[in-house]
């Protein structure tokens, strides 16, 4: 079974600075998706960024980028120019592409605090 591990329960960053959130995963599949979701106090999970395992190029979405290391099974999220609105829980998630369910497997999350 696939597992996702987030080793940082909490992180903090100063406004306008850069922070990196860590994620590792375990799978025997060669093709899959990886995601970072943001969950503010409203509880709604919001997709931040997505990476397809077959793509070597790291995904980027504005101030958010990932460092995808397939061999190491590592998928970290970098937030540049941090803003107060970035404060939230961040979850790393995995999904198979071929066969079976399309369920997401989530890590336990990292609570990000942004200090003014």
């Amino acid at each position, binding site marked *: 079974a696939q597992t*996702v591990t987030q080793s940082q329960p909490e992180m903090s960053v100063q406004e306008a600075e850069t922070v990196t959130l860590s994620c590792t995963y375990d799978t025997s599949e060669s093709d899959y998706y990886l995601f970072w979701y943001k969950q503010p106090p*409203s*509880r*709604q*999970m*919001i*997709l931040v960024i*997505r990476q397809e395992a077959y793509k070597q190029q790291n995904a980027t979405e504005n101030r958010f980028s990932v460092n995808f290391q397939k061999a190491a099974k590592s998928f970290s999220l970098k937030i540049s120019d941090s803003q107060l609105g970035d404060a939230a829980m961040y*979850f790393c*998630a995995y999904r198979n*592409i071929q066969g*079976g*369910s*399309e*369920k*997401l*497997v*989530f*890590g*336990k*999350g990292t609570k990000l605090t942004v200090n003014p």
Partner: protein
Amino acid sequence: GAGVSQTPSNKVTEKGKYVELRCDPISGHTALYWYRQSLGQGPEFLIYFQGTGAADDSGLPNDRFFAVRPEGSVSTLKIQRTERGDSAVYLCASSLRRIRHTEAFFGQGTRLTVV
């Protein structure tokens, strides 16, 4: 509405009671998922519907949990004989048909408290 809608937003029930949680997916989304998020944890998969049928119910913890989606749109998660350990946020998500670049959109969840 434009997003996934879940009702009620909060539900308090007594131990042993029966509860129903409702999910209205985005119009046209054929895939629907239920997840359970306990305090301090990430969401855990419960069940996945493709249309009206449950394509994967491997995450349902026991036979007290059941979900239906009779017309391929609205889904109801049903919990019988609730226990205090069932207290959690129940999240619903929906997505377009099963294609490679499908994104799942989440609702705001139902917080269930069993007292």
